[in-house]
């Protein structure tokens, strides 16, 4: 019965996409579909944290951005002059930073009382200045090299698809750091700490030009699929288009989008399969037992904080993978476009609406909410047109309403979250067995 309902829900979702395909264009439908796939992966990552363990991550944006960084650092060709100008300095600065941290930890372990505070403070101050002393000149050297075109170290020049895994690793590293600090304390603190780290990640990406060119953006990323223009000049493709009886140019665009879809779908299915397996394994059962009754689990000798750290890292890694996929699809890395609404909040709406704790629910939520998000824009504008149709051209209120229409989406998404949380907290596809 339930299976039946879920199949219908997904069928309905594809029906919506088909309507866009027939009504607007297949190219638009595929663009939405691709972002639906990526959204679903992100939602899956968040569901691993929230649905399996009840961890509230308000910094999804930061982890997604780290995936984007990976796309740049993996796929861009190295800027050799920049490397020779400053890479050694940067490396040395990183080592110096590591030494400072290690020395501080060592001092804190060995000393006690006032001595401990004083010595650690001295180490931190000295370490800071030494690190900065090495770091700053190297950064200037790197950023001085053709700032309009490069001005950064570049990457490894590997295929961009490698970055999907690397993005996961980056996000996992950041998650480890945040989790170490904030897990095991009040549940609010993880939320606050993730909010903080994500704001800082974005600030770093906007300002550290030597790393990813900051707000100057990195464009022209490597692509995992052929370019339209190449296809249009390839014999087999032209003949394929001929046999299908379509226009080569529009078919090339659709073909490229479809190729992305296949790649994303493979990732989604793989992560989905792993998540489901994990959820049904003894590990998954234990996670849910901890979530539902932490005290009892603790009394049974389970190391709750450790398990939480595990699940937090895993979920963040999945978000990082999705972040790298997104940047790959965009073909460029633009730190200025990361905002918490699109990258944190929207994902939360997906998870809650889909059904927290249920992986299929998250996937459906990812599809549905992305679709609504995209289609709400024209609908909102149209709505405002209707509302203001009675007003005269120069009416101030009319202009204001028309201009403010985009902000309606924010409100609507907030409302949806609050309403679902309140009236249907189990979402569209509830967790099996329930809480």
């Amino acid at each position, binding site marked *: 019965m339930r299976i039946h309902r879920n199949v219908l829900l997904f069928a309905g979702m594809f029906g919506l996409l088909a309507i866009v395909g027939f009504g607007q264009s297949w190219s638009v439908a595929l663009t939405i579909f691709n972002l639906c796939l990526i959204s679903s992966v992100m939602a899956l990552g968040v569901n691993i944290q929230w649905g399996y363990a009840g961890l509230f991550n*308000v910094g999804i944006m930061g982890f997604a951005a780290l995936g984007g960084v990976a796309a740049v650092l993996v796929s861009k060709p190295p800027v050799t002059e920049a490397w020779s100008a400053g890479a050694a300095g940067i490396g040395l600065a990183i080592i110096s930073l590591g030494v400072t941290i290690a020395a501080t930890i060592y001092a804190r372990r060995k000393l006690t009382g006032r001595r401990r505070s004083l010595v650690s403070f001295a180490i931190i101050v000295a370490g800071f200045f030494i690190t900065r002393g090495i770091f700053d000149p190297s950064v200037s050297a790197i950023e001085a090299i053709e700032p309009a075109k490069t001005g950064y170290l570049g990457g490894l020049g590997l295929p961009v698809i490698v970055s999907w895994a690397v993005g996961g690793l980056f996000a996992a590293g950041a998650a480890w750091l945040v989790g170490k600090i904030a897990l095991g304390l009040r*549940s609010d603190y993880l939320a606050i700490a993730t909010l903080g*780290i994500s*704001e800082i990640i974005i600030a770093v990406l906007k300002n550290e030009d030597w790393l990813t060119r900051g707000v100057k953006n990195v464009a022209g990323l490597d692509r995992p699929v052929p370019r339209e223009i190449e296809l249009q000049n390839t014999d087999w493709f032209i003949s394929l288009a001929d046999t299908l009886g379509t226009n080569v140019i529009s078919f090339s665009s659709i073909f490229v989008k479809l190729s992305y879809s296949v790649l994303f779908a493979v990732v989604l299915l793989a992560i989905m399969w792993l998540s489901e397996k994990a959820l049904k394994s003894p590990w998954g059962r234990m996670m849910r037992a901890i979530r539902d009754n932490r005290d009892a689990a603790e009394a049974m000798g389970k190391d709750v904080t450790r398990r939480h750290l595990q699940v937090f890292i895993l979920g963040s890694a999945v978000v990082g993978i999705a972040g790298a996929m997104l940047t790959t699809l965009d073909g460029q890395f633009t730190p200025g476009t990361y905002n*918490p609404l699109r990258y944190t909040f929207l994902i939360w709406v997906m998870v809650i609406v889909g059904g927290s704790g249920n992986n299929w629910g998250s996937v459906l939520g990812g599809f549905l909410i992305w679709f609504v998000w995209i289609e709400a824009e024209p609908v909102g504008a149209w709505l405002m047109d209707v509302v203001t149709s009675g007003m005269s051209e120069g009416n101030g209120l009319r202009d204001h309403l028309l201009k403010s229409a985009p*902000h309606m989406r924010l409100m609507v998404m907030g409302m949806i979250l609050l309403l679902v949380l*309140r009236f249907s907290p189990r979402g569209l596809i509830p967790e099996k067995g329930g809480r």
Partner: protein
Amino acid sequence: MTDILNALILFANFVLVPATAYGAQLALGALGVTLVFGILRFSNFAHGDTMAFGTMVTILVTWWFQSMGVSIHPLPTALLALPFGILATVGMLLATDRLVYRFYRKVKAAPIVFVMSSVGVMFVMNGIVRFIIGPDDQRFADGERFIIKARDFKAATGMAEGLTIKVSQALTLGIAVIVVIALFWFLQRTRTGKSMRAFSDNEDLALLSGISPERVVMITWIIAAALATIAGTLYGLDKSFKPFTYFQLLLPIFAAAIVGGIGNPLGAIAGGFVVAFSEVTITYAYKKFLRYLLPENLEPDSLVQLLSTDYKFAVSFVILVMVLLIRPTGIFKGKVL
């Protein structure tokens, strides 16, 4: 000697005075967060946007007053509009409590559910603010701008460096002092204030004493609304009003509340100043300051800025992290975890 004096004036002008004003603004914000935490027991992510909402209403009323020629020169008209902003925000918060949080109190939902719904509220409020006043910078300060102008200061003292004190900075400090005194008087001396402390201390026993939780919660929201609107308006007068900035203020405000000991009003005030002074001293460029103090051959040629201002939120975060690692209950023992 004059060099040392000049250095001190420079430091006061760019660090002491602005950080004091900023600290007072953060303290007021953190007080709101800490009160809500003490009574409702969750971190209110909507507080930054509550500040934005209250400030927005204040700005709209200010503009209306200005258009009618109402003014309290040399003070900014916004002070006159402030009570209206507070009233609207009180209404807003009581409505959200009624529509959102009350239900979760009734079913005794887990704290994290409150946090999550406060994030939902945050986005709705954010949407309302952007919808009404737009996402851009708004200026609404009028009246006299300076108490002491750098030029006059130089002329009067004959020093090379000038000291500027803006009306908004003095107002911030003055109003913050009045508000804090009033708040502490209320909490320490009145029956309702004591009942709020009792409720925060031991909810079950408060119920057994006949203290009505709904009343305590209502008063908490009213105070939080007033604090948020005042903090937001003062911040807006001192700097400028932009919805996104207010959302970003959430981090230093949380840091301030947690550093001081969350749930502890005294801690919130101390925390506000700790965060503000750390932020300003760490992001200040000491080049000119050192040039006064150091012999010529030692003068720095870089900016001598510990951290670029783009990273000012990182300062709050680092403070937050240090507190969580070293003393999670904060300076003044807040709520246990």
